[in-house]
């Protein structure tokens, strides 16, 4: 199996603080992976590097079958390559309806003049409705997304990610602030998505990670401390020391 994303030997320093230290990471084309680690372990910085928000000082980030480097691309180019990102706090366009949010995310030409000339087709509308059903917002299509509950906003954002049809989904703490029922729905959404694409979930909550039932990577001080099943890494002495044993 060739990797979809290959990060090797990446380091980045902020004002002398080494946020990422010689990090190497790999993920296949259809895989669910959880990344855990204490605060400051570099989880979010890792996502920033992959999505082009932060430029690393050294290392390589290779993407896809042709192994193109993501380091020279802008955020929007990387997104068009098929990397989708969900932020920690739900960031949807609150001023606009659920429909508009999803329509904007649909995988279509992103050039300004193409977007200007864009007209909704019945097909696109059907696709948006389908996505809305999938994330449980089918009957809320024309509500302003600002009126949605916290959990619904999180789902809407996941729905927007799915609409982008990314090959890799980076999800930052999707379950934060959710009720138990909402968490279950979120788990289902992520597992379903991981059948056809790579999904990387950064999460603090061990229960949630256990429910995802996937390979886990533990980050500590900017590099990988352990990797394997959740049971495997939680037995690791070092992991217990830095993270779980607190």
């Amino acid at each position, binding site marked *: 199996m060739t990797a979809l994303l290959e990060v090797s030997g990446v380091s980045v320093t902020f004002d002398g603080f080494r946020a990422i230290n010689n990090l190497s990471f790999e993920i296949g084309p259809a895989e669910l992976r959880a990344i855990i680690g204490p605060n400051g372990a570099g989880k979010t910085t890792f996502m920033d590097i992959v*999505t082009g*928000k932060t430029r690393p000082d050294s290392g390589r980030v290779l993407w896809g079958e042709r192994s193109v480097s993501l380091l020279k691309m*802008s*955020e*929007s*180019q990387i*997104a*068009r390559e098929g990397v*989708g*990102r969900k*932020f920690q706090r739900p*960031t*949807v*366009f*609150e*001023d*606009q309806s659920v429909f*508009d949010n999803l*329509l*904007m*995310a649909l995988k279509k030409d*992103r*050039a*300004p*003049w193409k*977007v*200007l000339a*864009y*007209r*909704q087709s019945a097909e696109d509308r059907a696709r948006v409705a389908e996505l809305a059903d999938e994330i449980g917002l089918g009957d809320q299509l024309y509500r302003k997304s600002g009126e949605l509950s916290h959990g619904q906003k999180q789902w809407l954002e996941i729905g*927007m990610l799915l609409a*982008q049809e990314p090959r890799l989904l980076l999800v930052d703490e999707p379950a934060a602030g959710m009720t138990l029922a909402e968490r279950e729905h979120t788990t289902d959404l992520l597992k379903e998505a991981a059948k056809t694409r790579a999904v990387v979930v950064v999460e603090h909550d061990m229960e949630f990670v256990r429910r995802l039932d996937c390979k886990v990577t533990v980050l500590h001080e900017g590099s990988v401390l352990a990797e394997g099943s959740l049971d495997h890494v939680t037995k690791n002495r070092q992991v217990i020391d830095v993270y779980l044993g607190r």
Partner: protein
Amino acid sequence: MKDSLFARNPSVLIFLGVLALFVAAVTVLGEGVGLGLISTSFVKTLGKTLCLCLIAIAMDLVWGYTGILSLGHFAFFGLGGYMIGMWLMYARTETIVAASLAQAEIPPTPQEIRDAIGTQIFGVVGGSDFPAIWAFSHSLPLQLALVVLVPGLLALVFGWLAFRSRVTGVYLSILTQAMTLALSLYLFQNDSGLRGNNGLSGLQNIPGAADVPQSLLSIWFFWGSAAALALGYVIAAFVVSGKFGSVIRGIRDDEARVRFLGYSVEAYKLFVFTLTAVIAGIAGALYYPQAGIINPAEMAPIASIYLAVWVAIGGRGRLYGAVIGAGVVSLLSTWFTGGQVPDLPLGIYTIKWVDWWQVLLGLGFVLVTLFAPKGIGGLFDLISGRRAPARHGADLGPDTGSFREKEADQ
């Protein structure tokens, strides 16, 4: 067509209808072709106001919808005015010079005519040679092209540099203001080639229309301004409706998110910035022939700040709000500063509105910002919301009528 622009935005049709009524009313009441109840100078004021409404639409696009608080759009407005002014001045001086030289015993050579025009135009700044930037001033089509090209190119280059470096928020505002100030200071210099602080004058005299009275010219320009406003409104409505509008409002609310959706935020900003600069240039090209004179003071940064105030008072993020804001505030401003408002004696102190108008405007701005962040345009939500809760709110929508009529009466 169910999906047409007008079906989706009934406010566009309402706006066009109200504008048409307003134009008809002014035409009937005006001096040029109508009853003569409205003076020519007031027709000009109304025509100029329509141009200001047009640039307010541009400002609303760039600020209210895309979230770029540009304090430089009056620079583009002024540039548009200068570009048309160059032709107006050249062509008119040419007729005058040709007429006077025709008396001479030896017919003048084209070079002599050109030299004489140069002396006429540039004598005031102690020169007689045409600067390079006047190369196209003999040709109306070329100068009209420059009305679009010069502001457009300046916005394109400036925007490219600024947006590429990810300058946003207040820093971008300062940068645009610096550009405006630099341009205005440059034009103040006598050797800038545009007659320094004298500016270009006599623009109300349209070459080739010497026999047409100003009363008729003013109504022509009024029609032209109204047509441009209507067209600008429709274009802006087209831009902000649909997916493009979604994307630019997304940029306003959360730029990073739009970027991670795969949209090139910089390209969108540049597109909107350049488009609005072109609209501003066209508005300026229609404004200054009605004003008669343009000088660098018109481009001073304060003008662009006024523009932001109009849009804020009218209600940003809705096109008719911008139009109402620009119309109401600039007409009120004309009224107050024109000395037509009676002084208010308070016993120990008499309020002279000419002096106090700016205080009033500033107070109004603060009050609107604090208590009615949606501006005057927000009133329509109130009205439509109360009359018809959610049933056909969109139909009732923006009824710009009342304001328009008030403008006509003033």
